[in-house]
């Protein structure tokens, strides 16, 4: 699991638990099956789901704080498939196609399995079956949520409030701009196309990375001087470090201006854009903070190294 999932999503869930939410993490094994993750092998997907429970637990989302529900159990609940059909009856084909997880990939209809059409309808049904007040996801899932809101209105059921998180930028930043269009909104399309993704491991920090790996990846990361937009190192400060800690310390020798402590991300960004903070000093401090933040994860997985090894090979 990379820090986009483990820490950006994980900390948001912790925020919500702290704000009093009764929170369910749905292990979407059937959705992964439809989406051909691990070649569509359900057994492998389930093992990975077990790993997800451990990974989220390692950052504090233990079973006493959140509920873990498997999609494969949810689909067995009475009324699930009836609701899928009801949702599908209220949505036109072109709208559902726009919600597909493979949206953006250039595919001919003959290359797409029909099962994909169930995917958005199941996402909407999950919301209705779990009877949630609030649906959370990354920005790339917003269309399925909008479909859920419209469908809820048509079926006269509770309309979910939808919360969407930023998709953490790959360490390569905007330098690896994809040609694919993922969304009509250009800005969102770019965000989806440049997000941290396990399929591009060099652009990812994994929650299990050693302090040495963290340091070497951060030092190699795209980090243009005086530029905040599309800067993955600054994004880590904003979405990960300040989500966990109240201040951010940059240690520097006196001849380079001495150490400086920032009490907000905005303060740090201003200093960086003005050129008062050198990319290398920023990188060193980010690597140190990330290493400290991920320490409990390393501790939690002591004795479970086999699982991490197995997962990393899948």
């Amino acid at each position: 699991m990379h820090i986009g999932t483990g820490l950006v999503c994980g900390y948001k869930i912790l925020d919500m638990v702290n704000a009093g939410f009764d929170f369910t993490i749905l292990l979407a094994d059937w959705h992964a099956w439809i989406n051909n993750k691990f070649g569509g092998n359900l057994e492998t997907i389930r093992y990975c789901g077990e790993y997800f429970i451990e990974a989220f637990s390692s950052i504090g989302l233990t079973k006493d704080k959140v509920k873990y529900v498997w999609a494969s159990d949810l689909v067995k609940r009475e009324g699930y498939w009836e609701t899928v059909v009801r949702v599908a009856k209220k949505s036109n084909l072109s709208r559902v196609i726009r919600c597909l997880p493979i949206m953006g990939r250039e595919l001919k209809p003959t290359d797409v399995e029909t099962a994909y059409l169930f995917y958005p309808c199941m996402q909407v049904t999950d919301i209705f079956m779990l009877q949630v007040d609030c649906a959370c996801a990354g920005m790339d899932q917003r269309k399925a949520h909008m479909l859920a809101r419209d469908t809820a209105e048509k079926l006269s059921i509770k309309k979910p409030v939808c919360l969407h998180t930023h998709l953490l930028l790959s360490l390569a930043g905007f330098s690896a701009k994809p040609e694919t269009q993922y969304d009509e909104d250009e800005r969102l399309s770019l965000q989806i196309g440049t997000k941290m993704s396990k399929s591009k491991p060099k652009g990812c920090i994994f929650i299990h990375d050693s302090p040495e790996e963290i340091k070497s990846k951060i030092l190699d990361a795209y980090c243009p001087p005086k530029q905040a937009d599309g800067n993955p190192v600054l994004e880590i400060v904003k979405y990960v470090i300040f989500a966990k800690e109240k201040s951010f310390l940059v240690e520097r020798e006196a001849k380079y201006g001495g150490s400086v402590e920032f009490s907000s991300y905005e303060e740090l960004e201003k200093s960086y854009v003005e050129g008062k903070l050198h990319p290398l000093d920023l990188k060193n401090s980010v690597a140190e903070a990330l290493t400290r933040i991920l320490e409990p994860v390393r501790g939690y997985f002591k004795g479970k190294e086999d699982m991490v090894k197995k997962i990393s090979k899948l």
Partner: protein
Amino acid sequence: MDVEERLRIVERNLEEVVTHKELKQLLECEAKPKAYWGFEPSG
């Protein structure tokens, strides 16, 4: 924790809230509202 503080924590760092007004109403009416996040287990 009052509603304003809960709202601040929940909305912190979010890119989009649909809608802020509905979220506020939800927090005003429910001490323990239900929420979910679905994840495809993919490594």
